[in-house]
């Protein structure tokens, strides 16, 4: 059990309305029906020896160590597989039982090295610990045939598999199956030849289907599977619970330390979002926090063509203040703005928007949600009354029908993807709407009932046709609608949806999805029991992103699939704190808590709290800031933890806008791409270097706890505060908890939130207020936040971005499991072994027509620009559609994406770009210029390049000094 001081109850918790009372070792114990004798004993403080049992896994009954005696029963039943019954009398400690257990342990030790891989005690080896406890001091058996010379599989960059320590208890295999749901491991062979095997005979762990989630290591009782860092550094000594800094699942981790150094990150079993599970990013890819590319001193320069000059904090802040004041005096506050980050804490984000509003005196503040989930805010607010997912993650356990639209949970939200797959294996039905055959469409023990493989850009036509089917076939939940929704709006929507234009037979021409399949899928969603929608950026990043969010909300209301566990409309947020950064007033039209700046009552609250006057007009969005900069009316930008040059569309335009500004202040952990155009660089902090909170996709506010000090000395909130103070504003927090107290004072949905409460409860889901003092797992239970649910009309308006003779293919973009967004973090870890460059997935027929083979270097050209990357011929795509990730700046997928955006929020239309693809043999001219420019503009005075020159020359540099590009 790879974790410090875990309490392993042996079998999972059971819930039941019926309680069972039994007697264990003379002690009366009461537990829910269905509980194992083992769990009942351990919950009562009675230890039961075990090796094959884990409370993360279903009981298996193979190790023969947890045997007990039960009054009236013959033999020695395994306590893990024996359920409690009323009046049962159990003995766990008898001479006979101990004799049997000692014998079993001795047999195990006869084919085991006998000592831990770590220098400290028994390390993670439960067998050695058990031998000690049972007083097994010698092994009587001669060394016969054994596995002690087995080769260690060290292929995985993060962990080893040492078969000489393996007792073939199957915990790893079951963890891979039951927890992760990948089914990559198996017990190969029989009898003595039994061995744990990853993949086929020719595979090792790295080449197998293993996704390196760490569940097997977590499960292993003998150090056969163990983290390389533990072998190298020894066992950790203490742990601090914190929250992962990657995706919107927001997993809780125990950072396990030796001294002040992190040895490993172990998923916290008490974590309510992840329930003890993890993915390769959160579990292993945290090494970037100590990467040599970290910038450790503030830097300034007068011109972006100058080399960076390292300066003191005082000089950097004074330099920034001079620039900001100069711009404000010359051009007014409207020429200033700020961008908050979903990778920073709630408290830090709150401070940045406060800096913009209270100190810069502008509502020109925006956040990276602009380019991902801003349509979620608009759509859910319009229909339900608030901008948030409706359910907690555990709600999926009550789903009967899961509708996944434009999301790829197993890659982008892997821990929740595993929870979803578990429910699917239990029998829930699945509908996938995606142009690409994502893993959920067909993977081990999971197969979608329907894969609606629609053409990019036709989501709204599809959801309208599903709604049409529901209404025309009388499948709506009329009782729910009449009780919970605005009937005038419903009547208007009904009339609209029932128009012929929205029938599946008519929309098929746009979507490419057969009408009969749409009708069958819609029937299943409407009548299959609890129906839940999970969606991602494949919904939002369209010119009709907001319309589609409203379309999904409409069918959820029409079918009554809202307000109870197992239902709802659930955005899978891209970054760990997208929800939080939006909650904190990061949008230019909203103050914290999604309240419009034009509302005098709301402004009064903040004006009183902050002692300033707040503007009542909406500020500039990120694309507006760039446009205004090129127009000469926007001059200064403070960016915390965001890399708009890589992540935002139409890179050339972003670069031109940044270059037109007089002062760009970047606060980040690495010299990111945007920093090429910056005048001030303020070195920030990672999630391990600060206190605060993140809010995940289920509105769960989790604590982030400081484990080490940032190399440059300050957490991000402290840097913002330094800037505010130097600008003359009295910002004097001594701890982020004081910032949360201010959020609670000013924001009704956070009224009951405090660090003390989160520490006491583990986490809390907003709204947390007088009515819901411990938070709200499921929203809109009795009434919608806005009162009556509002059906919104959803006209399908085809995007202007169309395939044509010159650009006949449609490009769509997404993420891959091992890399994360712009890759600044994961590219600086061993995750590059799985994905060292962006690939273009092309359907075999499109590839053949163009002479493209697997691995061919191809040019992808749109009307906006051209870039070069390698092709991967894949039947995941439908003909006419190509796909790429955007993790590597050198690929610069966004050089080809367009300026088209969502009508309501200006969220870019990343998911539809008309392109042509052709074989080529070199990087594009733009890529060469870009890399050259970056090299010059990121130069630090009197230092060598921050990037490895060989990899820069090869065109595949990613700011990492350790890993070679893929062949």
């Amino acid at each position, binding site marked *: 059990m790879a974790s410090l001081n875990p309490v392993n109850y042996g079998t999972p918790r059971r819930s039941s309305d019926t309680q069972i009372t039994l007697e264990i070792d003379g002690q009366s114990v009461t537990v829910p029906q269905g509980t194992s004798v083992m769990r009942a004993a351990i919950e009562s403080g009675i230890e039961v020896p075990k090796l094959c049992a884990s409370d993360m896994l279903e009981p298996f009954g193979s190790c023969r160590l947890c045997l007990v005696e039960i009054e009236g029963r013959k033999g020695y039943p395994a306590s893990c597989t024996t359920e409690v019954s009323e009046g049962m009398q159990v003995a766990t400690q008898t001479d006979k039982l101990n004799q049997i257990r000692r014998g079993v342990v001795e047999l195990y030790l006869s084919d085991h090295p006998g000592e831990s891989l770590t220098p400290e005690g028994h390390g993670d080896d439960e067998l050695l610990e058990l031998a000690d406890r049972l007083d097994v001091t010698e092994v009587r058996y001669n060394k016969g045939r054994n596995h002690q010379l087995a080769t260690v599989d060290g292929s995985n960059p993060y962990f080893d598999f040492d078969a000489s320590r393996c007792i073939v208890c199957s915990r790893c295999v079951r963890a891979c199956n039951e927890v992760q749901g990948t089914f990559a491991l198996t017990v190969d062979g029989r009898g003595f030849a039994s061995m744990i095997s990853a993949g086929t005979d020719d595979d090792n762990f790295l080449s197998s289907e293993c996704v390196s989630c760490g569940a097997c290591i977590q499960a292993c009782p003998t150090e056969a599977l163990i983290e390389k860092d533990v072998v190298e550094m020894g066992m950790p000594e203490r742990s601090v619970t914190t929250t992962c800094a990657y995706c919107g699942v927001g997993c809780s981790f125990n950072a396990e330390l030796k001294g002040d150094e992190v040895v490993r990150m172990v998923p916290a079993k008490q974590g309510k979002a992840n329930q003890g599970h993890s993915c390769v990013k959160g579990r292993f890819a945290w090494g970037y926090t100590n990467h040599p590319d970290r910038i450790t001193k503030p830097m300034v320069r007068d011109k972006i063509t100058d080399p960076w000059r390292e300066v003191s904090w005082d000089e950097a802040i004074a330099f920034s203040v001079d620039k900001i004041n100069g711009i*404000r*005096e*010359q*051009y*007014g*506050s*409207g*020429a200033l703005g700020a961008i908050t980050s979903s990778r920073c804490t709630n408290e830090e984000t709150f401070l940045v928007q406060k800096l913009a509003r*209270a*100190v810069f*005196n*502008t*509502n*020109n503040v925006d956040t990276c949600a602009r380019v991902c989930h801003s349509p979620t805010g608009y759509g859910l607010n319009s229909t339900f009354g608030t901008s948030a997912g409706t359910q907690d993650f555990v709600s999926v356990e009550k789903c009967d029908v899961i509708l996944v639209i434009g999301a790829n949970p197993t890659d982008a939200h892997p821990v929740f993807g595993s929870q979803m797959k578990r429910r699917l294996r239990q029998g829930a039905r699945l509908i996938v709407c995606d142009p690409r055959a994502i893993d959920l469409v067909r993977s081990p023990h999971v197969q979608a009932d329907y894969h609606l493989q629609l053409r990019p850009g036709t989501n709204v036509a599809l959801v309208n046709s599903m709604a049409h089917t529901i209404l025309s076939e009388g499948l709506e939940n009329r009782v729910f609608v009449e009780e919970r929704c605005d009937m005038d709006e419903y009547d*208007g929507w009904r009339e*609209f949806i029932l128009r012929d234009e929205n029938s599946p037979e008519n929309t098929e021409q746009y979507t490419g999805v057969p009408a009969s399949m749409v009708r069958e899928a819609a029937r299943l969603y409407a009548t299959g029991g609890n129906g839940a929608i999970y969606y991602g950026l494949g919904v939002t990043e369209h*010119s009709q992103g907001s*319309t589609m969010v409203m379309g999904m909300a409409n069918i959820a209301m029409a079918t009554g699939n809202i307000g109870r566990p197992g239902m709802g409309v659930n955005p899978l947020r891209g970054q760990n704190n997208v929800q939080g950064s939006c909650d904190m007033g990061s949008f*230019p*039209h909203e103050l914290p808590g999604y309240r*419009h700046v*034009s509302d005098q009552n709301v402004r009064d609250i903040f004006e009183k709290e902050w*002692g*300033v*006057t*707040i*503007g*009542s*007009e*909406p*500020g*500039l*969005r990120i694309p*507006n800031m760039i*446009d*205004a900069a090129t*127009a000469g*009316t926007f001059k200064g930008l403070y960016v915390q933890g965001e890399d708009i040059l890589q992540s935002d569309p139409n890179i050339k335009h972003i670069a031109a806008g940044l270059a037109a500004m007089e002062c760009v202040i970047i606060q980040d952990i690495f010299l990111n791409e945007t920093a090429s155009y910056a005048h001030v660089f303020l070195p920030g902090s990672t999630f391990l270097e600060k206190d605060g909170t993140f809010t995940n996709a289920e509105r769960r506010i989790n604590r982030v706890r400081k484990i080490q000090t940032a190399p440059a000395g300050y957490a991000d909130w402290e840097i913002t505060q330094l800037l505010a103070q130097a*600008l*003359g*504003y009295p910002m004097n927090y001594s701890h982020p908890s004081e910032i949360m107290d201010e959020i609670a004072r000013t924001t009704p949905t956070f009224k009951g939130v405090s660090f003390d409460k989160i520490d006491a409860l583990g986490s809390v889901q907003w709204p947390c207020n007088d009515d819901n003092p411990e938070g709200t797992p499921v929203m809109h239970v009795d009434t919608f936040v806005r009162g009556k649910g509002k059906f919104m*009309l959803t*006209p399908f*308006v085809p995007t*202007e971005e169309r395939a044509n003779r010159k650009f006949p293919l449609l490009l769509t973009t997404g993420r891959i499991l091992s890399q994360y967004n712009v890759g600044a973090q994961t590219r600086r870890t061993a995750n590059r072994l799985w994905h060292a460059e962006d690939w273009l997935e092309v359907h075999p027929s499109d590839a053949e027509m163009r002479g493209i083979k697997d691995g061919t270097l191809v040019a992808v050209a749109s009307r906006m620009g051209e870039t070069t990357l390698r092709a991967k011929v894949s039947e995941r795509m439908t003909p006419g559609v190509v796909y790429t990730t955007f993790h590597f700046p050198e690929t610069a997928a966004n050089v080809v994406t367009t*300026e*088209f*955006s969502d*009508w*309501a*929020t*200006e969220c870019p239309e990343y998911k539809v770009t008309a392109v042509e693809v052709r074989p080529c043999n070199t990087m594009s001219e733009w890529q060469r210029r870009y890399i050259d420019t970056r090299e010059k503009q990121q130069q630090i005075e009197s230092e060598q390049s921050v990037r490895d020159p060989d990899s820069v020359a090869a065109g595949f540099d990613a700011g990492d000094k350790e890993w070679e590009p893929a062949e």
Partner: protein
Amino acid sequence: MENDKMVRQANQIAQYFSVYPQARAEEGVHGHIRKFWEPRIRTQLIEYVAAGGNGLHELVHTAVDSLRDEPSSGGESGDPAAQQEIGRRAT
């Protein structure tokens, strides 16, 4: 913002609301632009309409009629003197 881009975005808003009855569509377009567009962009739109408003959806023209009559309510005007005054109050 380039005029072409502004026109396209305004027309997108109009296309969405055009599915509603006329009065609500007009209110929708006006309300959306008023609620989400920064004053500089609203001013640009008003000036564009004053110059002929080529290519704009009819609903946008109607919305601009209303916008023209509404002064911005301050705080974001871009007027240096006004901003400095606010700045002084802040400090």
